[in-house]
């Protein structure tokens, strides 16, 4: 008889913790982890320091290369899930492979958000979410002096710090609909402006971007309602959105993220979601929340795994660490850093 097959989609903290927890609890389970990026599990929050050169690539990785093999966890990297069929319990990979599962944990995390009105300029924005992004930045920064940061999520702040440390000139355009995961108000605006200015950042407030144009490989021109700027690179930091588009019309309940109950269960038996892609209702907040941050993801991955094999553990967010943005609340452990 074939052993039960548990597939984990994603290769971040939630996914890896889920896999390790499952293996810790069961020797018989067949476990497959499918990661879209072609690299091993790394600490994404350290990427700014990797870009600045403070850390080497090897410092980012979490597990030694042979770790998964030793634990008999099949790790499949650089492979993308195209869709999931819950009727037949099949995962379809984008190279047209069919993988059958008995249970499933979706822990795909988030992807950088670009507001709809700016999506026509997507090509000119650089994000910093993946190691691949970081490599592009590293390359770019070799001969870039002036960087424009647009938006203003938490990654942008640590990245700004890293850029300043590299001696770059940073212009920061604070964008109210995107200062994620915070709901933006004047108090925060002035607080942020003050902090950044003190560190030598040129802060632009209340601007509307009218157009972006790539002048050359190394020059982007930005037109706002107030001025025209010319910079070497533009970083887009509008926060993350759960990377769940591939599950559209799969039958899962999806709003921003995958809607799960307190036990991280989706509406299908044996199917869980964890980490930055899960959306949970919180009675105290009177709102849904989505976790961000390494620790939260790690924790949710563990809970999903334990519940999958019969546990009954509630995922709970601490209200103080939850912030609202655009109708959605987020739980973060990063905020304390700022």
């Amino acid at each position: 008889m074939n052993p039960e097959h548990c597939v984990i989609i994603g290769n971040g903290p939630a996914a890896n913790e889920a896999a390790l927890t499952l293996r810790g609890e069961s020797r018989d389970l067949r476990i497959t982890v499918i990661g879209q990026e072609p690299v091993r599990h790394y600490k994404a929050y350290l990427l700014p320091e990797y870009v600045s050169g403070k850390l080497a690539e090897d410092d980012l990785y979490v597990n030694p290369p042979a770790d998964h093999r030793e634990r008999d966890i099949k790790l499949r990297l650089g492979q993308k899930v195209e869709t999931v069929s819950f009727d037949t319990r099949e995962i379809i990979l984008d190279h047209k492979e069919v993988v059958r599962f008995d249970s499933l944990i979706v822990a795909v995390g988030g992807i950088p958000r670009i507001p709809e009105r700016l999506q026509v300029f997507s090509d000119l924005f650089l994000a910093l979410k993946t190691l691949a992004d970081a490599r592009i930045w590293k390359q770019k920064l070799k001969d870039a002096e002036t960087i424009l940061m647009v938006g203003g999520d938490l990654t942008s702040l640590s990245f700004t710090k890293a850029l300043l440390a590299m001696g770059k000139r940073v212009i920061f355009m604070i964008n109210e609909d995107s200062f994620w995961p915070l709901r933006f108000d004047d108090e925060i605006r002035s607080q942020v402006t003050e902090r950044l200015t003190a560190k030598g950042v040129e802060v632009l407030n209340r601007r509307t971007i009218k157009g972006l144009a790539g002048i050359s490989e190394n020059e982007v021109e930005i037109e706002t309602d107030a001025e025209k700027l010319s910079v070497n690179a533009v970083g887009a930091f509008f926060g993350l959105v759960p990377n769940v588009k591939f599950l559209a019309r799969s039958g899962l309940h999806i709003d921003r993220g995958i809607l799960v109950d307190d036990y991280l269960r989706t509406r299908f038996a044996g199917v869980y979601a964890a980490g930055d892609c899960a959306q949970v209702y919180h009675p105290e907040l009177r709102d849904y929340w989505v976790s961000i941050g390494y620790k939260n993801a790690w924790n949710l991955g563990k809970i999903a795994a334990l519940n999958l094999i019969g546990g009954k553990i509630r995922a709970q967010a601490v209200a103080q660490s939850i912030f609202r943005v655009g109708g959605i609340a987020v739980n973060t452990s990063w905020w304390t850093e700022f």
Partner: protein
Amino acid sequence: MTCKNLVTNEQPSTEKRAGGVVYSADPADFAYARVNIPCQEACPAYTDIPAYIRCAYERRYGRSYEINRSVNLFPGVLGRICSRPCESKCRHGERELGDPVGICHIKRAASDFKGPGRIHGETIASSPGKTVCVIGAGPAGLAAAHDLSTIGFDVTVLEAFDEPGGMLRYGIPEFRLPRNVLKQEIDTILRFGVKLRTGIRVGTDVAMEELLFRFDAVLVAAGCYVSRKLDVPGENLPGVSSGLAFVVDANARRAPVIGDDVLVIGAGFSAFDCARSALRLGARNVSLCIRATEEDLRVTEDEIFETKREGITIRSLVVSRRILGNGKVEGVEFLRTGPGDRLPNGRRHITPIEGSEFVIPADSVIVAIGQGAEPIPSPGETDRRGVLTADPGTFRTSVRQLYAAGDFMTGPTTVIESIAAGRRAAEQIARDLTGKRFREWAIRIEEARLTDRERSWDFIPRVEMPAVLPVQDRLHPPDRQVEIGFSDEEAFEEAKRCYLCYLHYEIDIDRCIYCRYCIDVAPRDCIKLVQEVVTDEQGAITGFVETNEWGRVSAVAIDNSRCIRCGACVRVCPMDCISVSKVQKVERLLHPWGDT
């Protein structure tokens, strides 16, 4: 499942015509068309989509337009605002095949490029000398009037508003549908002697009883002009308006007053129209509040994207509990919701979460959660709101001579459904009055040749509809059409993508030697070694049991549901046993003028 055939209880016999053409009424053939030409089947009016796209490819835009107009009457309108049930069924959108063909955009191209001097052909039938009154000049009413007029009925249309068009004129904003396009198509519809009288409200200006006396039949197609209410406290506060009233005012250029912070409650096209119109009327922050999630919205993905791009926020999983304000609206209190299973009607069951109250401030609230029909004083059985009821199959009310159709009868639907309903009602009325059938659907099968379609065309990416950018430029003037329309070249490229599902490829197993040459050249797994053929009760093939065991291979069979009509198999078959035929569901006028 029965075919939505006009002829539900009578079966025309299969007959042959010259030139190798067969018209079939065999249920198996209808079933074939249903399974294999999914776009045409998805269209309530059964528009022959592969045929008109092929014409567009041949740059015969006039013919392409006419193929549309012969069944849906409003190609120019539909090319801009159709809900496109066909595209979600297009095989190009199936998993692994890419995106659906931009069927609707090609329709618009046919309309844009057909040429101003185009003379619309029309098959007309002999006059039976009967009179019919149609109440309502919306899509259903106009469609019924058109069909009756072309078969010789004397038709009068009564319209309560000042202009004809119904929701097309008063419900759809001008930035979507320019009025000159609408006017031209209405004029074409009316040209066979339909008498249009506007500004006449039945029950007020004229009594139903009088109409029943003066006409041989009366068809009520008065649409849905009563807004549904939220039924929450505060709904009558100033600053709260119904979506319908808002758009009718906006479209009649009566410039409704709008605040800075606008909440639109509702999830349909109307709600989106309200939100985008509000922005064009000067609102600063517009939010759409929906009960379920974006995924459940029944508008197109493009619509959601464009709406967000214009700066409108969509707030999901919320349900309004009361409208707050003191003499004027100040905000709305909502509850969060949790989504449940999908209901049979496609909507999502949702459950408000107790104790999740929260408030969003606003100075205007537009409630666009649906409409219902307005009761018309009339004899006959009604529902509990006093609206005349009719049999959905025959359109007959309890009063002989009196019929009802369109949104008036069914509640709000789409334009294309209304048109289809109006046409079907017209046929029913004509039959009831004369005892004769005038139009019927058949499956037309014709020998065909290989086309010039190439495999490489499958990889052409879907041509995006060009839209006015940057977004700021859209808002002034407010009636500026947002979608620019395909160029001739774009329409040609998009038309190339169509798989031409009306072409049927089949291997004659009697002559097949099972050499698999066809499989060798097949571009994808569209030709199979088949052990058994699975059919449904009507005889349509719904699947194949495949095998790789030589002794079990009963046939080498083309799976038409995976065929992309590249013709590679036909070219190599040593036994010449692969035939191509054109299979179309067509409507036929049974007693054309001059046919004795």
